[in-house]
């Protein structure tokens, strides 16, 4: 492990704590980390898009592509020129052509893509084979997590009710209101369940950060040179010390946003 990597490991722990200080309040040390993050991420995005898309798909084709590729690459070049015309107020209208092109192309391809994947397939999958379900699970089977005819019917009715909840162009009759309410309840059940399901993932992320700060994610030989626990402790003292000093300077009158 080189010195520069050890320095990197310490820096990364320090930056982690800077971001966590946002949990207390928006503060200068967080703002510093935030703006470094913004800058680095923008630079990263530009570099990756240049080497990932721009160079292979445009520059390389223009320079060493076949004739067909070179001719085809001229079109996006012209469109880029039109897009950049935005910078000049008088010619800004030229940018409408590339924007029209890109919006239309993606809208067109997504139209069938969504229809295929999110409507056709989902409907086809939503029609249960009740005799088969009956033969396999009966009315309700705890062992199979509640699979059975009851659940199949619930699925069909719940789906229909949710869909009808999104019916916009008619006043809701009494029956429709009831169906719609049932649809909302099914939606809420799903949202609550998803929320609960997600909590785990979010805590896992924090565990990941804690594992790094305590050095649990590294082999012992690296821990021996980096001393992550020590780094965490020192950085923690610096960050907390800074926060106290900053709060004092702000005076007692300042009520932090909670």
């Amino acid at each position, binding site marked *: 492990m080189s010195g520069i*990597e050890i320095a990197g490991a310490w*820096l*990364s722990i320090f*930056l982690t704590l800077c*971001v966590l200080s946002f949990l207390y309040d928006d503060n200068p040390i967080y703002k510093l980390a*935030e703006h*470094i*993050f913004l*800058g*680095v991420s*923008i630079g990263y*995005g*530009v570099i990756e898009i240049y*080497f990932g*898309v721009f160079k292979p*798909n*445009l520059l390389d084709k223009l320079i060493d592509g076949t004739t067909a590729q070179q001719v*085809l690459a001229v079109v*996006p070049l012209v*469109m*880029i020129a039109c897009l*950049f015309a935005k910078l000049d107020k008088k010619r800004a209208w030229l940018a*409408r*052509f*590339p*924007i029209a*092109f*890109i919006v239309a*192309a*993606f*809208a*067109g391809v997504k*139209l*069938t893509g969504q*229809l295929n994947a*999110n409507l056709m397939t*989902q409907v086809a999958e*939503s029609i249960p084979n009740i005799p088969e379900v009956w033969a396999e699970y009966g009315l309700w089977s705890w*062992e199979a997590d*509640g699979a059975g005819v009851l659940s199949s019917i619930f699925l069909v009715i*719940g*789906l229909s009710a*949710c*869909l009808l909840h*999104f019916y916009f162009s008619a006043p809701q009759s009494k029956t429709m209101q009831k169906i719609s309410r049932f649809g*909302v309840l*099914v939606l*809420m*059940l*799903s*949202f*609550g*369940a998803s*929320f*609960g399901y997600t*909590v*785990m993932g979010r805590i896992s*992320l*924090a565990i990941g950060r804690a594992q*790094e700060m305590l050095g649990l994610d590294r082999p012992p030989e690296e821990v021996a040179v980096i001393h992550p626990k020590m780094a965490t402790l020192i950085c923690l003292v610096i960050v907390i010390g800074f926060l106290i000093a900053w709060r004092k300077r702000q005076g007692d009158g300042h009520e932090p946003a909670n």
Partner: protein
Amino acid sequence: MRSTLPLILTFVVGLFMVGEFFIPHWRYHMWTQVFLEWGFILAAAAYVLGLVNLVQVNLPKVINKEQDWPYKLIMLAAIATMMIPGFIGGETRLQDGQMYKWLFDFVFVPLDATMFALLAFYIASAAFRAFRARNLEATVLLAAAILVMLARVPIGENLPIIGTKLVQFMNWIMDVPNTAARRAIFIGSALGAVATGLRIILGIERSHLGTDG
């Protein structure tokens, strides 16, 4: 011309791309592929405009020493600090020993992961605040959340008597009502997408094309 031509372009390109699904022939697909590639190149080129926008927004703040200007300066400097070694490193930029890789590993990654990890805290405070049994809908929401949270970890599973049933019931919620709700959202969005797509292709929605004649 300034407003009609973009509409014609929209119609022709949009219709052509709808055809992508219905016409499988490779002679057609070779062109739809090219169109999409052009779209990606165009989106990539817009990064230059994005940078211009960033400088336009932030540089005047630095020059006029507006509030928070030192941070804006740091940000602009950080952009350069990342971009220069990136271009110098070229194809090898992500190999060990490159400055770009070092910045990625020790600045970008921890900041990114910690920003994400803030969610562990926010999700707790959001749950505490929002999950109050004010009415039937809210009660269903909260009951489902608690049940799933409990059944998802070994504590719930190991509860005496109800443990196994709890996990089975959670799976039922995920499999049945959750599937119903999700499918309804998928199907609804697909319908919305069709309507939106058609409105664009047919030129009914045109706010993205400007209006100043």
